[in-house]
């Protein structure tokens, strides 16, 4: 059964109900008490996001300082339920301009009630596209041209657009200047063993799009992925231009992309929503260009002293640079004193997270700064267990670099009025979970 929820609760960290909505009669209104006593007030919290208590099941997620709890008593679709929560939060954020937390909920509770009534009916998720909902749900939480008078009639056609085949774009948009912004954002995930061999490594990328286009445009996106290029050359029966091609392990698309067409022709064609959205996500495991190599040597000298040497090599082009590089090197809890030497950036000891934190604001390509630190430990007799070393973690951003090698080859915009479009493309690679065991 694709039912996702019988009731939904928004609780603060103390367990007070901020908002609740019952969609079905099969769970009692007081089930949230069970959640409070059996999950929130025990150490079970955080051990498993799907729990059964009595005849009911609870799915919960924590988002900033709010717990969102879904209660069901049937064999509900859990995947649907969690995805619904994720999308609903995105919707609320879009309505109240960014933050989603306890205060935002209290300040917009009327709006949230109204949205909850609209986006789910009898436990079945309905249309959650912010773009469309904003056409006719216009509380004061959002400044919209339609909310000027309380008795305002909703936009004609709103209902057709909610339910239409292009349920994510409204008609009649008009921009003086037609522009599209593409942001290719990649996260590199790395798990490296202490001996320097790559245990797992992948890139998850997303293509974010910002569209300011008039009318109902059809868009087509071309990437340098192998399968797409092969298919293209097949169709046009001419050889592919030489150049680096990459192999995408998997792609997922925003609901605006025609999947059947992607499956048969390997082209990404779509009618985009207006404004900002995530067009696609992709994953690559082969041929990943790691932007950084980390070479740590950590020596424990007796029970009270440690020597930490870390060298970080940037392996991208010399003309490029990384921003906001942070390297966190874990040290034991009983660290007493530290001293550092760095060839670039700044390092200090952060006792709250038991790490040496080395920050380099601007990190050019093809360089290899080093840090060496001496750590003095308080010797404790009670620590019988030897220290287990958590991995070194790294954060960074490298603009104009893609770890996967992905490039946008073209973005074609076609609209019946035949206007010209300006396209902007940016690339950036960030650290996902970039871990080096030591």
């Amino acid at each position, binding site marked *: *059964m*694709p039912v996702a929820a019988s009731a939904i609760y928004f609780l603060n960290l103390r367990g007070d*109900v901020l908002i609740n909505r*019952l969609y079905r009669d099969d769970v009692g209104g007081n089930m949230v008490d069970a959640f409070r006593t059996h999950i929130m007030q025990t150490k079970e919290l955080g*051990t*498993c*996001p*799907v*729990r*059964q208590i009595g005849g009911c*099941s609870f*799915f919960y997620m924590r988002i900033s300082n709010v717990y969102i709890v879904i209660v069901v*008593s049937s*064999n*509900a*679709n*859990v*995947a649907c339920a*969690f*995805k619904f929560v994720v999308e609903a939060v995105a919707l609320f954020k879009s309505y*109240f301009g960014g*933050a989603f937390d306890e205060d935002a909920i*209290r*300040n*917009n*509770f*009327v*709006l949230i*009630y109204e949205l909850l*009534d609209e986006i789910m*009916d*009898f436990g*079945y998720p*309905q*249309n959650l596209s912010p773009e469309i909902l904003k056409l006719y749900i216009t*509380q004061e*939480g959002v400044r919209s041209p339609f909310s000027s008078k309380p*008795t305002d*009639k909703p936009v004609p056609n709103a*209902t*057709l657009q909610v*339910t*239409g*085949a292009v*349920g994510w774009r409204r008609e009649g948009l008009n921009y003086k200047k037609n522009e599209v912004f593409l942001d290719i954002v990649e996260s590199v995930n790395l798990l490296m063993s202490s001996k320097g061999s790559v245990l797992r490594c992948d890139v998850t990328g997303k293509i974010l799009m910002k569209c300011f286009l008039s009318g109902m445009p059809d868009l087509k996106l071309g990437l340098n992925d192998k399968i797409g290029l092969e298919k293209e050359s097949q169709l046009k029966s001419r050889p592919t231009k030489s150049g680096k091609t990459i192999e995408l392990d998997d792609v997922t*698309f*925003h*609901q605006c992309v*025609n*999947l059947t067409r992607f*499956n048969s022709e390997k082209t990404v064609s779509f009618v985009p929503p207006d404004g900002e959205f995530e067009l696609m*996500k992709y*994953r690559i495991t082969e041929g990943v260009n790691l932007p950084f190599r980390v070479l740590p040597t950590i020596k424990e000298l007796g029970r009270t002293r440690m020597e930490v040497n870390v060298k970080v090599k940037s392996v991208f082009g010399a003309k490029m640079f990384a921003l906001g590089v942070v390297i966190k090197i874990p040290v034991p809890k009983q660290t007493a004193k530290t001293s550092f030497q760095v060839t670039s950036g700044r390092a200090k000891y952060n006792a709250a997270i038991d790490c040496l934190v080395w920050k380099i604001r601007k990190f050019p390509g093809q360089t290899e700064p080093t840090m060496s630190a001496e750590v003095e430990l308080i010797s404790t007799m009670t620590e019988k*267990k*030897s220290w*287990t070393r*958590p991995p070194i*973690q790294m954060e960074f951003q490298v603009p104009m670099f893609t770890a996967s090698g992905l490039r946008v080859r073209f973005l074609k915009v076609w609209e019946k009025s035949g206007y010209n479009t300006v396209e902007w493309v940016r690339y950036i690679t960030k650290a996902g979970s970039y*871990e080096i*065991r030591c």
Partner: protein
Amino acid sequence: MSGHDSKYFSTTKKGEIPELKEELNSQYKDKRKDAVKKVIAAMTVGKDVSSLFTDVVNCMQTENLELKKLVYLYLINYAKSQPDLAILAVNTFVKDSQDPNPLIRALAVRTMGCIRVDKITEYLCDPLQRCLKDDDPYVRKTASICVAKLYDINAELVEDRGFLESLKDLISDNNPMVVANAVAALAEIQENSNRPIFEITGHTLSKLLTALNECTEWGQVFILDALSKYKAADAREAENIVERVTPRLQHANCAVVLSAVKMILQQMELITSTDVVRNLCKKMAPPLVTLLSAEPEIQYVALRNINLIVQRRPTILAHEIKVFFCKYNDPIYVKMEKLEIMIKLASDRNIDQVLLEFKEYATEVDVDFVRKAVRAIGRCAIKLERAAERCISVLLELIKIKVNYVVQEAIIVIKDIFRRYPNTYESIIATLCESLDTLDEPEAKASMIWIIGEYAERIDNADELLESFLESFPEEPAQVQLQLLTATVKLFLKKPTEGPQQMIQVVLNNATVETDNPDLRDRAYIYWRLLSTDPEAAKDVVLAEKPVISDDSNQLDSSLLDELLANIATLSSVYHKPPEAFVTRVKTTAQRTEEEDYPDGSETGNSESPAYGADTGASPPTSSSSVPYAASRQPAPAAAAPAPAPAPAAPVPDLLGDLIGLDNSAIVPVDQPTEPAGPPLPVLLPAATGQGLQISAQLTRRDGQIFYSMSFENNSQIPLDGFMIQFNKNSFGLAAAGPLQVPQLQPGTSARTLLPMVLFQNIAPGPPNTLLQVAVKNSQQPVWYFNDKISLLVLFSEDGRMERGNFLETWRSIPDSNEVSKDFPGIVVNSVESTLDRLAASNMFFIAKRKHANQDVLYISAKIPRGIPFLIELTTVIGIPGVKCAVKTPSPEMAPLFFEGIENLLMG
């Protein structure tokens, strides 16, 4: 831009309710609106504002949509507690449902459906009827769901008013969202009804698959979930469906992906081409892996499902084990599930890498996770013979770290490894013994003691080691006591010297006189008795060879797995339990149909799963009873214990009477099983598979003739006639002796018939089996196939009685090699008479009875057509579970069939 609603939560010191009442009745619109917001705010924080009902409802008549919605919200919450006042709102609802604004029409119908008050429901029907045919798709999509709401309140009303038909029409609506909601509503109604309401035909299927392309993401989920119940007619159709569903795997919504995976897996069962299957497996892997980059909660759902998927189709993710490596910051529930899948995917090819990972995890901080990692190493050792040695060396390295809980966990798994590979790795025992005094957990202690007892002859100071535990015997948990008892007996049998002899006396004394635990006492008495009567026999029993255990990581029962896979993405697939096990809500159906495939067995299978639900880290329940040896943790069925049959606590008086002076009154009476009272025929073709036609049937014997007793039930909506039947070749050549006589079946009626049968018509070659394949057709539906079982008992003829002399003669004339016997440990014979009566009713005739010690031995004869005799010997102790059945016949290949039959008969 943020709102400022929080001010509505602040309260004044003055009495709140009267103040609100005043404001609600204010002449100013804005003040009224603010007042309603305050009421809703109060309702949210749990204050009872139901006393304001009339005042709030008075605000309902408004042009302001925002205010109207708030009032409706209030109504949904309080109408049930004020049913009489709720009626005040009806007029507005009805009026709103005809408003020119479609949003208001839809809002009215949506809200009315949420108010579960009978009086309101009555008024809902007319607006609903109109809205289902509304010009505006937004209203229609809302009305579709409303039908499901109404069905939940009053199913009869929905059927009487023809809403189901309107709903079915909406499947062909030109608006995709209306179609999706109609499908969702119909699927839900079908789930709660026992009549076929929403049957997916090839035509609907194709229409819905086309609609998929245009639906919202959620609509796609509704449609895929509904279609996953569709059974394709053949491989070609299945391939077609799959081809149209695979593009969904690229969807960004995880629910769409999982529902598509569910549907593909269902259809794959029918696809015969290995190429197609391989290709599909290849296509499903990347989207499944991608799910692991979603939010951790979604990852958890995905992992629980992947756990099921790799059990059925291990190849899908065989090369992807790396993606299940745990990240340091993964939440614990994600790590636990990843670990479980890593064990399942571990193979000779990747084991080195996997072991390195496990070793890494074993040094992390979270104790539960560390334990599970250690246990995982043991499970890999048991699963992969060629890697066992490497696993053991990793375990030894971990033991050397001397972290207490790591050592204990390692010892527990090493015990299992010893059971799996006897006489291979005992050289490490010395290392294990070094950690002896650090053990403080019962399970680890019990495991270590088991190892000492089992290998007493190789451990020089085994007696000293065991003795060190003896002092604290009375304080130890039961699990440890049982192990100490058994280990000491083993030690004594292996080294019958003075030291062990003293120890055994201490232990037996402690375990009999000094204890209140019946399991311990019973086991101790049995050992005592064995040792005092025949030490050699004791050796045979206690030191018997144990069967090899196997890996438990793929242990979901195949039929349960089928059901769980059909429920991918739902709670059922997360809990690894069939829906009936946790959904308490009762269906409106009187009969059970499909669920009967999984009666009781599935639930037990499931509770044993170590991966179950939230308990992932905890140990499975320890069964201290009835299983000697520390077998409770062992993956293999532990019934292999050498001590006498896993005995319930009823002692045998004349065996132990002299020891403990028990009299017969201590025998625990077992309830007399009630005589079966003409059980209803088993359902062979459930209505769900037979498009509404349900067939129940069973072979019976009457007056020397075999009949096929059948019952037909027409749950479809058309009359059925022209029934014909055909039996496939079977071991006994059973076939219909005449035409099937079933009158025309009107919808909702049923008919019973007795079809005479003949034997030896169309005999299937090969060893005999009980399979009876039946095909039934009628003029309206396709041919239905189902399987039945032939019980040998119906074949026993009336002339099976033998004279004593004849019996003896026949017994001698049949060579001993033709004698087959089988034990039924679970069967109790409480009365010889009633058993004999029951046997006689099936043409099994009593010849003689004798007593052997306290056992009764019965001799029985029976005969199947063509004069093949069955000479039967039943041995049992009255009132004690356990029946031994030996049978001698010229056709010993029939013996398994016979045992099956007699077991059913004796079970009653």
